[in-house]
């Protein structure tokens, strides 16, 4: 409760100090860093010119929860997490495409439109629970298959990276 109040006040103060300039710089991650966003130029870097996020920071961003079937799961599953574009906005990153990299060094090229035009999320939770590495965690790029069945094909499957550790924004 107190922490929450503190956060609110801090946010208000931050807003006051920053207004009317660009969005406030990113907080430093407090917990384990699970995502690093890099770009040639980041507006809101927080650690060494990169934007680093812990779980709490990600879950604070605008997100969505959606239930759908995927080729990698059995039956209907609910994914929840921040919208990809919210993450990019928070990092202050903009470019033409994203290089989404996984723990196992798998990387997929994702056009920036997939973040901007689609409600693509960086799922942090599956069935309400956070995801361990063994459960394809900690982050899973989930396209809105529930909103557009036209997305349900190999093109988007190959972009659906899991065990994400880093997103590189390329001009």
């Amino acid at each position, binding site marked *: 409760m107190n922490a929450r109040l503190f956060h609110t006040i801090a946010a208000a103060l931050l807003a006051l100090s920053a207004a009317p300039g660009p969005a406030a710089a990113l907080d430093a991650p407090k917990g384990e860093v699970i995502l690093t966003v890099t770009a040639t130029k980041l507006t809101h870097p927080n650690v060494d010119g990169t934007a680093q996020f812990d779980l709490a920071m990600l879950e604070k961003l605008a997100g969505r929860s959606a239930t759908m079937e995927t*080729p*990698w*799961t*059995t039956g209907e599953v609910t994914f929840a997490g921040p919208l990809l574009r919210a993450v990019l906005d928070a990092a202050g990153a903009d470019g033409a495409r994203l290089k989404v990299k996984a*723990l*196992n060094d*798998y990387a997929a090229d994702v056009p920036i439109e997939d973040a901007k035009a689609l409600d693509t999320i960086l799922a942090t939770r599956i069935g309400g629970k956070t995801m*361990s*590495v*063994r*459960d*394809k965690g900690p982050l899973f790029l989930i396209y809105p298959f529930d909103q557009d069945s036209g997305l*349900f*094909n*190999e093109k988007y*499957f*190959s972009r659906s990276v*899991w*065990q994400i550790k880093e997103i590189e924004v390329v001009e």
Partner: protein
Amino acid sequence: MQGALPGSEVIRRASKATVLLQAFAGVLLIGLAIMFGVIANRYSSLQDGIRENALWSLYQLDREARKLHESVHVAAIEGLGSAEALSRTSQRYDILYSRMSILEEGNFDRRFGGERDTGPMIAEIDRTIRELEPAFDAINDEGTVTAQTLRRIDTLLEPLISRTEALLIYANNAVSADRADARAGLLSLQIKSAGLVALLVASVGCLVFLLRRQLRNVRAAGFSLEFMAQELKKACLAAEAGNRAKSQFMATIGHEIRTPLNAILGTAELLQLSALPKGVGDGVANIRRSGQALLEIINEILDYARMEQGKLTVAAQPMVVEDTVRPALDMLRDRAAENRNEIRLALPEKSRLPVILSDPTRVRQVVLNLLSNAIKFTADGIITLRLSEIRRDDADRLRIEVSDTGIGIDEEGLGKLFQPFSQVDATIGRRFGGTGLGLAICKEIVESLGGVIGVRSLKGHGSVFWFELPAVAAEAPLAEAPEEPAALPRRRILLVEDNRVNQEVAAGFLRHLGQTVAVAGDGLEAVRQAEAADFDLVLMDMQMPNLDGVAATGLIRQIAGPRGRVPIIAMTANASEDDRRRCEEAGMNGFQSKPVSMAKLREAIATHAAPPATSAERRDFDRRRGEIVEALGEEGFAELLDSFFDDACALLKDLHASLAGNDGNRDRLLHTLKGAAASIGFRELAAACQEARDRQLTPADIRDLETTINACKSRSTA
């Protein structure tokens, strides 16, 4: 017609082929639809099969297993590394674990398109990975690991790698084979579709070809039909022309026969007028009767010819029914008596319609025909002519029945009646004679009068011929006073006739009637005589050498003065409507059909021959004379007349003189003559003077005036 097959057969065959081709094309279309269905089905199953790339997942599994093995192996050989290195190795295990779970939970075809179920293989791999789980959990929890544990993990990972490799190789082969099969299947489907499409195109091509051929045949058939129609039309025209020629021939023959027959009949009539010895008189009577019979037959034939040409005309006029039929009866009474037949007339007791609108001549003709038939086929019997008035369908009808007690007609014979050239049987013709045209003509006449004709008969018991005519009441025609043939005034008559016998006959009749006769042998002579002398009447034959009647009439009408206005009566055996019209157009005053008889000539003279002065002229003169006599007395009038004629002679002389040169007072002279003539009452002379004033005077005009003056003179002294 084309080739050996008639056009219609070709068309029929072509349409059969078209139907077959259409059916074939339909079958092909169905085949194509099925093919499309199969392809669509394949595609939809492909859609269902959208799933994560299984091979890729296996590859990843194999790769992660190898990475883990490498990591553990290095750690086991080189000794334990840093905590960070341990953590990375542990993460490798986590990644491998997640890969395994994808394989288990994911939506994969575990056969990979092949025949073997890879489930047991995967389960074996899974078991090995899970076996490692406690060891890695311990590493995670404790942050350290013993070399022994690492070696154990290493030995466990070796078979895992070989299993994942085997699985990968198998899956890769299976997927490749499956892809090749799918490609082959699709190719075969495409080939089949292409085959179907080719067949379809071929059948459509055939259809187009057939349709073209059919169109060509239809056009050819159309042409041949048109050609046939033209041929038929030609044939029909030829047949009509033939029929016309036949009718024309009949008319000509009839005319050719009638001319000598007229001579025979006329001569016989003339002979009868003179006192003859007893035996000779009977012979002459016989000649006349036979001639009459022959004439009737010829008239029948001519009627029929006219009927065929559609020229048999009827003219409705008031007809006194009894007066029409009774003479027919009277005419045949003698003939009936020859067969010892009694002939009776049965009239309705009280006639409602004594006078109706019909054609008396034609009705009499029909009655005569039916009666003479009855007489012909009856001996020692009774022939009854029965008239009755009946009402049917709200209309009055006159029914005339001729019943006899003669030989009768059987069923078969009844059917042949009323048809031209038919007699009940061939022997009838030999036994009883006759043309066989009579009833056909009767039928035509009755039907043109709007009636019906019929018969009922019983063989051996006699026949009843009947006809019914529509009976519309009419005013009785003015009764002609049955006057005794009064002695005709003596007239000057020009007889124009080329046939010498007919000339003699007609001239004989005319002389017998007390007429002055001049004879002209042809049209030219007739014109010459009509120009040279005064006549009161011209009897003009129609067909003559040199100049025919019509042309001669035209020339006579061109003669100036009263001689050009002489009444002209045509005499012809060819009494068609057309002839009548031509005569009228040429300026003839009347028409008399041949053969001529005394009665006809008498009538013609009485009707047409102008008295020396027209009656109006005479009346005018008499009235004027009365007035003058009243004023001056008979002697005074006579003196007046004398001085008028003297003056007139003087005026004529002056007129002659005026022609020579001095023409200044010509009009005055004519005016003076006109005034004098009018005051005396010579209207015709006055009119002639007026007429002369209006045009260029010629010597001929003066001669005409002189003639007129002379006529006035002779009239005034009459």
